[in-house]
């Protein structure tokens, strides 16, 4: 079974990677399995200066998912370059840096600094949990274009734009990213949500709102990728609620070329490895002999025959 996928800047031996913010910089998961089995790794968001993040509680469970409002806590781009990237480099896998900021200039500075140390950038214009920047760039196509153009210009590696689902027109945002020079898209970030504790009559999460992730959001992400795949020519890294190899296949069929696993890492630290191991048998069960064959299959079929279809 050929699991490999080639994307701008990324030669992936398989299409599965941990999603940003759910894997830190890999060290904690390296105690459970060899990170070299991953297709790639998307690091936790980097900002120019170190950030402490939001107050606690920062997470709350929901039906089939969770809310989080970490607030982009990270040690700052310089520390990530010197203290975190070398560890991941030792595991011989493509590294994607998630880049965040509050201003166009900050996004640019972080991208410029980090791009020579990684294989691609995931431009985070969709974090719902910070007061400045973040999702405001990801919900306005004009602002998005401005920051994407600037980051693409200063980066030495391909830029994947991480889209927010908190918009009415996801295709419009995707087209704006493509026009501004993005090499790919990353879909989707979390959906803004809230839980209220009847005892305190206040939101459970200290930040008030948090980003909804997990199995609950998978159908939304699948729908958005299915829509966007038809409108753009750049590749999509799909994410949102993936827990099994069948979920991965669903994402590939919708139009993702690779996938990221997020919250599921919290309940099962082995999830990425297990899904990668299950993927060949799952693909073959549905009549595919490679990952490539399945990409976009729900939009335009590439494989004419399958035992499972009438």
């Amino acid at each position, binding site marked *: 079974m050929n699991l490999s996928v080639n994307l701008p800047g990324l030669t992936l031996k398989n299409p599965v990677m941990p999603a940003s913010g*759910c894997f830190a910089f890999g060290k*904690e*998961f390296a105690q*459970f399995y060899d990170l070299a089995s991953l297709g790639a790794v998307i690091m936790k968001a980097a900002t120019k200066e170190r950030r402490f993040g939001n107050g*606690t509680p920062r*997470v709350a469970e929901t039906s089939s998912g969770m809310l989080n409002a*970490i607030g982009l806590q990270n040690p700052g781009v310089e520390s990530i370059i010197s203290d975190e990237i070398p560890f991941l480099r030792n595991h011989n896998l493509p590294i994607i840096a998630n880049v965040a900021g509050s201003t166009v200039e900050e996004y640019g500075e972080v991208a410029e600094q980090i791009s020579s140390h990684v294989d691609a950038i995931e431009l985070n214009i969709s974090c719902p949990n910070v007061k400045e920047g973040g999702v405001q760039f990801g919900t306005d196509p004009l602002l998005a274009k401005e920051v994407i153009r600037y980051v693409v210009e200063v980066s030495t590696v391909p830029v994947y734009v991480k889209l927010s689902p908190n918009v009415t027109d996801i295709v419009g945002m995707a087209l704006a990213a493509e026009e501004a020079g993005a090499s790919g898209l990353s879909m989707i970030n979390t959906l803004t949500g809230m839980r209220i504790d009847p005892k305190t009559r206040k939101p459970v999460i200290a930040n008030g709102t948090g980003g909804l992730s997990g199995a609950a959001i998978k159908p939304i992400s699948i729908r958005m990728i299915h829509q966007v795949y038809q409108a753009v020519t750049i590749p999509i890294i799909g994410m949102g609620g993936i827990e099994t190899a069948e979920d991965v296949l669903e994402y590939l069929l919708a139009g993702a070329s690779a996938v990221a696993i997020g919250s599921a890492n*919290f309940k099962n630290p*082995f999830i990425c490895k297990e899904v990668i191991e299950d993927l060949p048998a799952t693909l073959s069960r549905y009549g595919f002999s490679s990952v490539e064959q399945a990409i976009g299959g729900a939009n335009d079929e590439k494989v004419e025959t399958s035992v499972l279809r009438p």
Partner: protein
Amino acid sequence: MKNERMTILRHEKVARDTHLLVLEGKLVQEIADPGQFVHVRIDGFYLRRPISIADYNLENSTVTLIYKVMGDGTKALTRSQVGDRLDVLGPGGQGFPTTSIYSDHALIIGGGIGVPPLYSTAKNLKENGLAVTSILGFRSREDAFLLDEFRALGEVHVTTEDGSLGKSGRVTDALSDVREDYQLYLSCGPTVMLKAVADQHPDTPGYLSMEERMGCGIGACFACVVESNDEKGYKRICCDGPVFKSGEVVLS
């Protein structure tokens, strides 16, 4: 840290909304110190539940957990039965360093569901030759547990908020009843209690065990972060803690 399906050997109610669970499995051998925790997966719930280790037995490979029903997840856990297997990740975090504590007399201060991890802590200290005095605080008589077990280890002072058992008030109200020659304190409970305890002991070394809602429980998600007084500025409760030296973290 291991991920294992542990077998339930005992599961019973020990106080109001409070249940004791004895599990058997290999990961017990990895427990380094009392005060560590395990991260338990409950069928139908998205996030694991961190539960502190009340006691453990390396010979029998058993671990005792005491948990409180706080919501739907822990309520569902009460329905698991002897013989069932539970998906457990652990042991996690840094516990009370009982083997490197050199002292004559230690004061244990536990509040509510913060009491359990202090039990094996007190036991280890006693085995190491320390005198152990305990102050255990509960909301009321129906919530109290482990009292006889702690009494077997030394002097015990009980407080309840409604006065239905022991002294009426909070754990700090019982400090004046304790012989003052203790050289360190070890405490676990809600953060407000830990702060009150630490404020009463500006010059006495202490260890505090904190609780917080967790995501991954292994240090990767940054959900359970507390501000710290070092250069880095933060600690992750799940892996840098849950036990910290007093003064190491900012209690607010």
